[in-house]
């Protein structure tokens, strides 16, 4: 049970996306990569808005597209919802009208939240009768998500869904997505170029660059790979950690090398909530002179960026003991 792209090629102008991948039919799959990687195009192809130039696409065993066999299920028959980055609300309808548009077109048998429920869950009941032109960016994002959910999709794709949201809304939105996917049994695919979002949401991750899938799999495995690190801005280098203080045990979080303190002795009387003992697995000198220390801990490999002076003071050596320290609020 999954969505599979085999030998799939999508073209737009000179850009060519080639994808060979499986998206599991439960949990949240994050498609991560720098801009221009072809992430949005991948979503469009899955939703049926972009034609495959080669290969095939199947969803839970059902062929959605097979170029050789000349099979192509049109977008409106795929039951795959897509939330666009720019919301794309219908300007001639109110918020309620936009949601009803989706609700009135879904198959009667599908069990999913209806307009009133979803507007309560996403806290925009008071906006229902407003024209969409009067909504803020964040409100538009929530209405667009609600509209997609009300259409009762069998898979939900979201393109940079958090772009217009502020901190608190972003966290609520993320929690809502996880619960929705789990409770409704709807697999979710989220496109993002932000590592924090990727680490927080992913049960599964697909890393892309320049129209290709670099690697895909479990975050714990994929996010420690050198080819994944190569996709990141140097300032974003770090490690994926599960169950950090202030987060639910199963939730992932991205711990940036820049936010990790190192101690050569067990720290006491300190406010930081995340203190992880480990052994120094590697000491790397970066081009700008900073030192990147890799620490093997019970949480996995943690990276810390320190100055050459700090390295000298702490007298850290490969194989030696050290403690990684991270403030709960820094995550």
């Amino acid at each position: 049970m999954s969505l599979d792209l085999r030998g799939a090629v999508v073209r737009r102008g000179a850009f060519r996306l080639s994808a060979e991948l499986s998206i599991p039919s439960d949990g949240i799959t994050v498609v991560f990569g720098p801009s221009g990687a072809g992430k949005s195009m991948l979503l469009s192809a899955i939703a049926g808005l972009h034609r495959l130039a080669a290969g095939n696409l199947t969803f839970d065993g059902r062929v959605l597209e097979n170029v050789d066999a000349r099979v192509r299920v049109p977008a409106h028959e795929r039951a795959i919802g897509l939330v666009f980055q720019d919301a794309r609300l219908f300007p001639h309808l109110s918020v309620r009208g936009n949601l009803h548009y989706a609700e009135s077109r879904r198959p009667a048998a599908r069990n999913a939240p209806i307009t009133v429920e979803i507007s309560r869950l996403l806290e925009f009941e008071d906006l229902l009768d407003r024209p969409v032109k009067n909504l803020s960016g964040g409100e538009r994002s929530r209405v667009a998500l609600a509209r997609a959910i009300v259409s009762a999709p069998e898979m939900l794709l979201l393109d940079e869904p958090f772009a217009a949201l502020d901190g608190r809304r972003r966290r609520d939105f993320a929690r809502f997505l996880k619960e929705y996917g789990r409770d409704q049994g709807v697999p979710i695919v989220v496109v993002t170029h932000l590592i924090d979002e990727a680490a927080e949401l992913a049960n599964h991750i697909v890393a892309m660059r320049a129209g290709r899938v670099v690697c895909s799999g479990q975050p714990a495995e994929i996010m420690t790979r050198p080819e994944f690190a190569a996709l990141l801005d140097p300032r974003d280098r770090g490690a994926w950690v599960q169950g950090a203080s202030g987060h639910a045990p199963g939730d992932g979080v991205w711990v940036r090398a820049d936010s990790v303190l190192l101690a050569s002795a067990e720290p006491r009387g300190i406010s930081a909530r995340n203190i992880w003992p480990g052994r120094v697995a590697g000491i790397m000198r970066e081009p700008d002179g900073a030192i990147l220390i890799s620490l093997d801990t019970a949480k996995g490999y943690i990276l810390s960026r320190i100055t050459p002076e700090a390295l000298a003071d702490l007298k850290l050596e490969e194989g030696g003991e050290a403690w990684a320290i991270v403030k709960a609020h820094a995550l």
Partner: protein
Amino acid sequence: MVRAMLTAEELQILSTSLGVAGRAVVFSLPVAILFAWALSRPRFPGQGVLNTIAHLPLVLPPVLVGYMLLLAFGVNGPLGGWLKATFGIQLALTAGGAALATAVMAFPLMVRAIRLSFEATDGGLFEAAAVLRASPWDRFWSLALPLAWPGVLAGAVVAFAAGLGEFGAVITFASNIEGETQTLPLAINAALNTPGRDEVAFRLAVISLIAAVVGLLAAEGLQRWARRRLEG
């Protein structure tokens, strides 16, 4: 007020004109919408032919359009004969025929205005509707048409205003029959050709001018109003 200012003859002519132009718009609007929609789509085979057909009346001499209508819809023409035999409808030399000739002449104007409106609609909205399970036909009714309706309205009003002034095609196909097919321009022409009716011609010309200006202003106003409603 209008009644007090116009003579019975002028009222008759104005009402014939309004009836002819009104019917021309009502009957050709659905066809114009379909043509405009098809022409606003990404390229498909036959689109060029469709485009040529839609714009032909713009470049053909109106007399020729009237003559072609006469050949096709005249009592002895293939379509005219069939209409007469099947429904008992005769178009040549009737107000219905005047409306048909006017409709054909105003068709390109309508198609252009509506097509621009379709083309101005954000294509991304149709993608959004598609992933909400709306079929192409559904998207046309639920999105394309409601979003383009300021253009549809403007196209209809401009075609109506232009229709009030259609001459060559109407006189060739429907002739100049007082009270039946004699619209404003036909009446002006008749008055000019009759000695001592200069004043009648002048008054009719002023009425024609006022109707045209009101039509254009109405098209502009309606379009602005509708755009405001859609975009805020």
